[in-house]
């Protein structure tokens, strides 16, 4: 798991320096295509190294725990705990450290931050590495609970988009609440037979509604 975090972080750093740095000033689409190309390359590399088949990983924490008459897989409980801990950790980093303060300042005005003597270029690299490392951490935690394949990227990405939008871009509370909403909608949608086939559709109906009624999301800051 530590290896996953380190590798993801390192790849993130390399990608940021080699690719993203060159496209920051350009349109959204160019940035999007640059990262899309990188994801193609990484997915292709994964397929060559690990093969195209899905893999399953045996859960490192086997067994079940009884809570209030229901039985839960221990590993699921561990994932919930880990998610809360990581969310709290990110919040603490953003709001309780110098690095976090710089990140928030860079969002508001990178040029001004640069003028106060902060190396914004390096800050971006750091942030991108942290993000990539966290993604690696999330992936490695989730891996034992589901089949893993090289095409995992786009499904996760589109749900991540939905969660960020519903919760509000740039808000950790929002992301947590958004994730809860999306998770609940999918789970309940799948359980109820009448809605079963359209569980995913509901997520995107909610995403559409949020974007129309409140584009900044439930917890996002208003755009200046």
């Amino acid at each position: 798991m530590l290896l996953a975090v380190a590798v993801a972080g390192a790849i993130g750093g390399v990608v940021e320096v080699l690719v993203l740095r060159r496209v920051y000033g350009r349109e959204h689409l160019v940035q999007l295509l640059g990262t899309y190309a990188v994801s193609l390359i990484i997915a292709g590399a994964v397929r060559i190294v690990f093969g195209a088949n899905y893999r399953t990983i045996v859960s490192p924490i086997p067994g079940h725990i009884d809570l209030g008459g229901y039985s839960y897989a221990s590993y699921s409980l561990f994932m919930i705990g880990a998610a809360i801990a990581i969310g709290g950790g990110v919040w603490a980093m953003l709001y309780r450290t110098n690095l976090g303060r710089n990140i928030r300042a860079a969002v508001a005005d990178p040029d001004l931050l640069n003028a106060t003597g902060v190396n914004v270029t390096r800050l971006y690299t750091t942030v991108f590495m942290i993000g990539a490392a966290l993604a690696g951490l999330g992936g490695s935690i989730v891996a034992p609970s589901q089949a893993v394949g090289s095409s995992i990227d786009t499904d996760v990405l589109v749900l991540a988009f939905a969660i960020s939008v519903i919760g509000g871009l740039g808000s950790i509370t929002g992301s947590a609440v958004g994730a809860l909403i999306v998770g609940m909608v999918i789970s309940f949608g799948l359980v109820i037979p009448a809605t079963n086939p359209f569980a995913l559709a509901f997520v995107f109906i909610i995403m559409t509604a949020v974007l129309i009624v409140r584009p900044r999301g439930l917890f996002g800051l208003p755009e200046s």
Partner: protein
Amino acid sequence: MIRLLPRSRGDRVRWGVVLVLFLFAALIPPLAGLDENLNPDASSRFQIFLGTSALVLALWAISYNLMLGYTGMVSFAHAAYYGVGAYTVALIFKRYHLPILVGLAAAPFAAAVVGVVTGLVAQRAVRLYFSLLTLAISQLLFSLAFSWYDFTGGDNGISVTLPDQLSDYTTLYYFTAAIVGVCLLLMFLLVRSPFGAALLAIRENRQRAAAIGINVKVYELAIYTIASLFAGMAGGLFMLYQQQAYPEMLYWTANAQPVVVSLLGGTGTFLGPAVGAFIYVVLDNAVSKQFPYQFDIILGAIVLGVVLAVPGGISDAPTVFLRLRERFHRGEKAEAAPAESSGEAIRLFDVRKALATDAIQAEEVHPGQTLLQIDHLSRRFGGLRAVEDVSLEVKQGDRHAIIGPNGAGKSTLFNLITGQLKPTSGTVKFDGRDITGKAPHVIARTGIGRAFQITTIFPKLTVRQNLQFAMLAHAGYTVRPIGFANRIFYAEAQELAEAVGLGAWADLPAGQLSHGDQRAIEIAISLALGSKLVLLDEPTAGMSAYETDKAMELVRRLATERHLTLLFCEHDMSVVFSTARTVTVMHQGRVLTEGTPEQIRRDPDVQKVYLGELEQEELGA
């Protein structure tokens, strides 16, 4: 006048390339047959099949580029309309047992209907949020196709067996080529039309487009719908040669294909994506055959290379070639057109000529009558009262200046008049009509032109096009989907460009001109609108003293001889006192006083405001 041969060498090269492309496309089946005869391994049927797929991909990519290249909209839902087209053909044929051509005819319209409905929803947001909304819409449509087993066949998709007359590869190829050809021609005419000019204006500068009277949202919805119409056509054709429709066609990542293809070929040219499509298909086939698992990596590397190294795409190559050649021949051509401006345009300002220009329309005016009436206008931002209870009258034929220290609310007041901001309370009446809170493009069409404080021009369009498009929008021609925009008002725009000293640079992209020259374009655009009232927000900001004198001389004389009414704000007091007949002084969002320049000059309160001595309490009284 119609010219048979393109005039410039660049045009000749471009049209030559286009001709070769079309010949190649027309000759693919015989060439494939020839190849099969010479080379026993080759299958002409497969190559013709590849050719068909390249044609369909070209149509799809160019339809995407209608939005991306001409309007700058990034949509994730375009693949969904492509999918809707394919499903329409499949469902009509399989479920309703109607001829396949009925389905093919219905496909673009089905896609357009879905496009206009979802486009209306997506339009509630702009830029990044617009893209995210299209992503949600695309995933919604995908989940429908994926999960609605009874109707769409769910994840299995639908497969169809074609009737005999279309099952022959060569026939299908020419059938597809004919439809694609007609679609390309229609799209080409559209982007060259005044309607296309409006789209370019929107891509270049939304704010300026609205300020010359273009209803940005309506035009964006129109091109969104038209693009989905052609995507539906492409999807229908896809269905024909693949004989199946499946839900992954609608998945959001499916949009990557037309985008990558457009990017490979170049988003800046009309046929660029078609070139990209052929390269993509050939590459896909060649690489997949030899390295089945590595296609993604190679594609990724190529996309990355293009993004980082050749942002213009492959079809930029002739331009690059020409530029290199010109550089090589530079010594021989001493009298080349000026490659860049040096800020001299304003010195070439020919005031007399400008006054005689018919391009600047003169309105009949009744001096002394009220043209613009502002009553108790207020605008608050949270607790900040940017404009507070401002009442103001601008008389026809007047030259009215608004002055005041920074933060006095001058620019906010202008934004309230021209609709960039909506007032919290109060009314604005122009020429007897209530225009309070109306959209900028509506206000521009009622006859208020505006030069912004920060230069807002269309940077990638030529200087002449900047003026031409403003004239097109003002004349209401931009609703026309036919006709060549570049030929309408050509002479008038050239005349105006020469009058403001920009004649020599008329063919240069406006963004390449120096700051002072761009200010001249800014002023010229507001004049090209032929407005009754021209608002100038610090017209001479950043100009040298000499440039300022020239610019203001033009503005002054235009106002007198062409009966333009001016409302301007300015920090340069010499400009104010030499130009204005009426001066309104604003301070902290309120009107402090109003009068002739002489009265204002002597007013002790005004002197205090500018010396910073006026206390808050005195104001409140």
